[in-house]
């Protein structure tokens, strides 16, 4: 690309000036990780405009993408400047991915900024990449930032749970309420959406969810999230209920602001990011030790029975820590 030749500061400057191509480039830097990403973090931290982060999750086929498209259109109509991060799994075998969520987001969302993110195999990758991407979008003036994930798999659920407002989408007639419960989606929901509400089973699903929410009152979950999650009925195809959903999201934001909870959620996100960064560094560090002569010696000793695995782990950690000081 033309901007390959530019250095990071130039790209940051262009991105801050609103150039979408530069924003796209910075997102790649953040996603890739490594030294350049670290420099980017340093350049952008503190420039945060503190955008509202909205997580939207639900099972495949629940019409999430169309819903997200509609939601961004509603947000844009109310004067906001939304962006979307659409997260999809990479193939564990090849590392490749087919990212197709934006087709439906584009068609209903108009000129919204959408970035598709593959989970990429590496450990904790998303836990660094997504906060990095949020930082880029936040600093370059997007608000709200909507993160769409498939509500299956712990990583995806965790990502959605990181948001200020987490929206869980379910579909009538598919046993979604039960599935959502099993997947742990009930615990993370600030707002429920019953999409395809024109289907006859929509009311039954709403009642299922209400019953589960009655239970969450008992378990104390409701107190933890700060309120009982409202249930919004939508039809993403026609757009019915989208304005109401947008209003619920805004209301939730106000509620969080009023109770200082938004800062708390941001702090939790930052903490999770730091944890992931630390874990990543330790991972790389120990991998380097394994490849060193000390690591090979420890493994040989382990194989011959001279030391046990716990002792080997201590040696690796000591070596790694020592190399930090050097």
């Amino acid at each position, binding site marked *: 690309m033309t901007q390959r030749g530019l250095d990071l500061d130039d790209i940051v400057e262009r991105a801050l000036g609103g150039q979408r191509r530069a924003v796209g480039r910075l997102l790649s830097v953040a996603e890739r990780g490594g030294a350049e990403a670290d*420099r980017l973090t340093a350049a952008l931290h503190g420039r945060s405009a503190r955008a509202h982060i909205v997580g939207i999750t639900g099972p495949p086929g629940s019409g999430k993408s169309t819903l997200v498209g509609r939601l961004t259109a509603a947000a844009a109509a109310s004067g906001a400047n939304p962006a979307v991060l659409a997260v999809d799994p990479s193939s564990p075998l090849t590392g490749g991915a087919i990212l197709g969520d934006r087709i439906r987001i584009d068609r209903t969302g108009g000129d919204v900024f959408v970035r598709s993110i593959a989970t990429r195999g590496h450990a904790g990758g998303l836990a660094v990449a997504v906060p990095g991407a949020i930082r880029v979008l936040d600093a370059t003036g997007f608000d709200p930032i909507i993160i769409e994930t498939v509500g299956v798999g712990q990583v995806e659920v965790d990502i959605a749970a990181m948001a200020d407002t987490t929206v869980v989408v379910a579909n009538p007639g598919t046993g979604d309420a039960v599935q959502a419960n099993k997947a742990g989606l009930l615990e993370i929901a600030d707002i429920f959406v019953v999409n395809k509400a024109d289907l006859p089973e929509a009311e039954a699903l709403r009642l299922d969810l209400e019953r589960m929410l009655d239970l969450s009152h008992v378990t104390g979950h409701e107190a933890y999230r700060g309120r009982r999650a409202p249930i919004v009925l939508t039809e993403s195809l026609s757009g019915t209920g989208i304005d109401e959903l947008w209003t619920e999201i805004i209301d939730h934001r106000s509620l969080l602001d009023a109770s200082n909870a938004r800062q708390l959620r941001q702090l939790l996100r930052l903490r999770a990011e730091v944890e992931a960064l630390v874990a990543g560094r330790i991972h790389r560090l120990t991998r380097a030790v394994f490849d060193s002569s000390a690591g090979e010696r420890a493994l040989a000793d382990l194989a011959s029975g001279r030391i046990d695995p716990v002792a080997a782990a201590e040696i690796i950690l000591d070596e790694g820590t020592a190399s930090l000081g050097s």
Partner: protein
Amino acid sequence: MSGPPSSETPPLRVVLAKLGFDGHDRGLRVVARLLRDAGCEVIYLGLRQSVDNVVAVVEQEDADAVGLSMHNAGHLTLAPKMVQALRDAGLDTPVVVGGIIPDVDVEPLRQAGVAAILGPGASAEEVVHAVRSAVDSTP
């Protein structure tokens, strides 16, 4: 301490689309899977895309290449339009065209800046090689 540089090169990001009305997406879908299985990240736009939308997507997704599939006469007008629109936006992203392209049209498409042309039934190796070398030869 600053983190060490990432050890792996990131996957190629390829935007795949069909422009206009043509609904023959069998080839595009096969290529999407071939590229995924070769470790690429495919941003799949599918059917009925406009040239302008593809440009916007390439910017937002920071894509390394654009793959277009063509199954009717549109290739002679649409593929050059796609190349031009990218260049007008200041992008030198390579455009690879696949599908049913008569031999006589290959040279005009190359002249128009299309980086590679793949015939029907191109093998996985050919597809991946075409995309990689198009990206590698982009300055």
